[in-house]
């Protein structure tokens, strides 16, 4: 939470509509995303009740579990969902190319595009994770056989759910989070978790203020919850009688069919408003111009997708239930590097994000008031071009002398704070520049900031951080419990109850 964002919320209250907190879009929005809205039965551990899924607004496919506590019906639901979702994912495995990537620029194979799953909120991402967990250990053969697509669905859903932990990853997006990254509403973050209320602020219907639209959106009768939790009153007054009707024995086939149709219609009515809202949200996000570094992060997502496709193709095991010590430490290391990089990239792509750091003293912006573009440093063995510029800033300046800073306008050029003068509200900062000016001792035109240019600098960097080194799994030290047992698929995995 930054003062700049907090102020945007206050402005939203006053103006009656959500205010932008970014100037570009920081997420990749796929050309053909797969939208999933899901409902679960209250009181159970992730028991699917119904879902609507599809890759276009007019192709929403409805899946319903007539008796949500019935194991066979659950696996039938999983199989039906698997054919849709896995089919969608595998459609992206047709096109691949060779690219140079990674710290050492080695050549590797990468699919030209990747799937993107869009869900309404983080709770539905949790549903995806748990559904992946309850299906990825199943087998298509043996006593408890399931449809072969089910364990494949489980592994893909688990893969996607784990990617949500990676800062900047866009393979599985929650609409409320994606929207809240770009707009500030006049309500609280807690209320922003309600997709209909959030959209009410961002995109209010004609004649209503954001506040009025959000208030209307809180009525579960006109705006059913986005899920996976259902509204308790709906459960008690509508759902329970319909489910009872479907599971009553000795009914004529016609009566049974009517009961099923009634249940399906009721659940479709619960899902459809959120379904439509999702596609509107995607349109709103797509309308924003993409930040310069979004494509690069999508490349990383494509690498991850390619890597996991290869893992599955080679018959790799399902993801373990919990991380081993080495896997955990290694993953934390990776997440920390990615988080730092993601924060820096957004600041570089977007002056409004950089503004947050300008208020905390990790960045500053202003006007160039003096420049020595031809200054040469002759102290070392070789003469080096080291221009000096002076920037006048009104931002609170708190960077120590000697600190390295970078300008988003010239990311390939490094700068060092030489001195600061003036008072708090108007500081003159002298910077020494290096690099990004060509190889000669005269700077290439435009590579040195000129007098009068508006410019900003930050201590954030997106430089390549090498991966830490970790022992092999078999060498897990005694301090952390020693080497973990090798994974052997057991009967427990297959027979695990899903009731």
């Amino acid at each position, binding site marked *: 939470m930054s003062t700049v964002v907090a102020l945007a919320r206050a402005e939203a209250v006053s103006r009656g509509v959500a205010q932008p907190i970014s100037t570009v879009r920081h997420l990749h929005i796929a050309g053909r995303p797969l939208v999933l809205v899901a409902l679960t039965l209250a009181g159970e551990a992730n028991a699917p009740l119904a879902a609507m899924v599809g890759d276009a607004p007019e192709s929403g496919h409805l899946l319903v579990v007539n008796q949500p506590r019935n194991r066979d019906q659950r696996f039938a639901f999983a199989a039906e969902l698997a054919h849709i979702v896995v089919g969608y994912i595998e459609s992206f495995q047709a096109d691949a190319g060779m690219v140079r990537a990674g710290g050492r620029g080695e050549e590797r194979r990468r699919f030209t595009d990747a799937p993107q799953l869009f869900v309404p909120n983080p709770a539905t991402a949790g549903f995806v994770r748990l559904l992946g967990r309850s299906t990825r250990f199943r087998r298509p053969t043996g006593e408890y056989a399931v449809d072969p697509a089910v364990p494949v669905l489980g592994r893909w859903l688990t893969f996607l759910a784990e990617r949500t932990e990676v800062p900047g990853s866009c393979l599985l997006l929650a609409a409320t989070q994606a929207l809240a990254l770009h707009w500030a509403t006049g309500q609280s973050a807690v209320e922003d978790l309600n997709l209909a209320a959030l959209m009410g602020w961002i995109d209010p219907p004609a004649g209503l203020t954001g506040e009025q639209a959000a208030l209307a959106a809180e009525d579960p009768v006109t705006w059913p919850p986005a899920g996976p939790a259902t509204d308790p009153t709906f459960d008690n007054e509508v759902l329970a009688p319909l489910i009872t009707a479907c599971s009553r024995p000795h009914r004529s086939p016609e009566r049974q069919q009517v009961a099923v149709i009634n249940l399906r219609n009721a659940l479709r009515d619960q899902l459809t408003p959120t379904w439509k809202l999702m596609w509107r949200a995607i349109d709103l996000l797509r309308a924003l111009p993409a930040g310069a570094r979004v494509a690069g992060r999508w490349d990383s997502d494509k690498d991850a997708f390619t890597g996991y496709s290869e893992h599955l193709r080679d018959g790799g095991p399902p993801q373990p239930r919990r991380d081993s010590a080495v896997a955990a430490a290694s993953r934390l290391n990776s997440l*920390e590097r990615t*988080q730092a990089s993601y924060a820096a990239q957004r600041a570089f792509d977007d002056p409004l994000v950089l503004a947050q750091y300008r208020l905390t003293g990790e960045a500053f912006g202003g006007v160039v008031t003096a420049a020595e573009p031809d200054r040469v440093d002759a102290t070392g063995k070789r003469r080096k071009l080291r221009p000096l510029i002076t920037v006048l800033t009104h931002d609170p300046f708190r960077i120590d002398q000697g600190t390295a800073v970078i300008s988003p306008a010239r990311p390939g050029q490094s700068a060092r704070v030489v001195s600061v003068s003036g008072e708090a509200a108007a500081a003159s900062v002298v910077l020494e520049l290096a690099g990004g000016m060509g190889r000669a001792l005269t700077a290439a035109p435009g590579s040195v900031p000129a007098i009068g240019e508006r410019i900003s600098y930050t201590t954030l960097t997106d430089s390549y951080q090498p991966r830490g*080194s970790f022992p092999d799994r078999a060498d897990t030290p*005694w*301090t*952390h*419990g020693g080497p973990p047992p090798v994974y052997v698929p057991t009967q427990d995995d297959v027979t695990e109850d899903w009731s």
Partner: protein
Amino acid sequence: MSARDLSAAAVDEVLSLLGGRDYRGVVVDSPPGAGKSELVVRAARELADAIEPLIVIAQTNNQVDDLVHRLAVATPALAIGRLSGHDYQPAPLVSQHAQVRVAQQVRDLGGCLVIMGTAAKWATVSEGYWRWAIVDEAYQMRSDMLLRIAPRFSHGLFVGDPGQLDPFTTVEVERWLGLTWDPMLSAVAVLLRNNPDLPVRRLPVSWRLPQSAAGVVAEAFYPFSGFVAGTAAGERRLEFTTRAFGSGAVDEAIELAAETGWALYEMPARQTIRTDAEAVAACASIAERALQRGMVARSERAPGGETVDPGRIAIGTAHRDQAQAIRARLGPLVARGVVVDTANRLQGREFDLTIVLHPLSGRRDATAFHLESGRLCVLTTRHRHACVVVARAGIPELLDAHPHSDPVHINVPAKFPDGWAANHAVMAHLANHKVRSR
């Protein structure tokens, strides 16, 4: 038993556990100023005397250099290796010892029985095996660091202060909560969860904290182990060489602190931004006044008294911008040596007089960051003589209004001391040492 005897007995026991070889590791809890560095040096000496190759791991370059220096002084004949990163410049503290060799690779330190370096550097070393490792500040080292270094040694002595700031991460994931090898936990926490039979001992005496502080600090921040002060009441005194002119609240606070070891300089209750100008000014004024009054510290170290010069005074805050604002207000006194920093950066340091801007001052609501017991513990355990806490009124009320809605996780032991309870205990104590600013 005198404090000295208590302390010596504890150290002897630890060393005999090390020598006994019955355990792969020994953990030593060391409250503030309890002689942790002396223990590390003694243990290193004993192991070196027994020709046991060992490595010593500390968390910062300053900590490593300090230990290198102390060990070099204690054993002049010992060849000590200082393993360093590529941008490390040897401090005079280290380079003055001819027996110390500095290098970036272990292979260039062959012949050194003892090799010392930071955890970050040791984590990049992937070869070599030593019988012994001594890990300093093991409670402040994160367990993923330990995972990377532990393959280098067979047995370990882990020393640290459990009451101070825990290691942290900015990554917010829950996937490892409950695992005994959760990489976000401290090294000691993971070590003990996976090896619960390892002996844990504590150093029972704080040589830094005065008698006036030991009791309240032990009760608030070390509820299960406790400790005593190494000096008796009256052995540590602060006196003034000048009298107060007029009787302002600042003078009253300094005098109360000098007399009792504590003072709470309380400003009227108000919600403010972090860099509350009145609080910033108060912290600076108290430091200025203490120097103006010519404070003299008498202690067992200097029975004749020594002047409290600027370098012996520190002002501690929770946030960097607060420290910066106070430095700006102090002006030239900073150059003269007064230390102003956050709790994170004050860890391990010691002063005669400290001034603390209370983390909860001026706030409407407490957050986990501000309630964290380690933060307040660091801030209130830097002093040898007296501590003045600067705060706006209303902190006990804020604590009482605090909603307790933190999530609880299975298989994650409850964290003690509880920051909320520790804050209440400290405020209850300070209530008896209150000076109102106006």
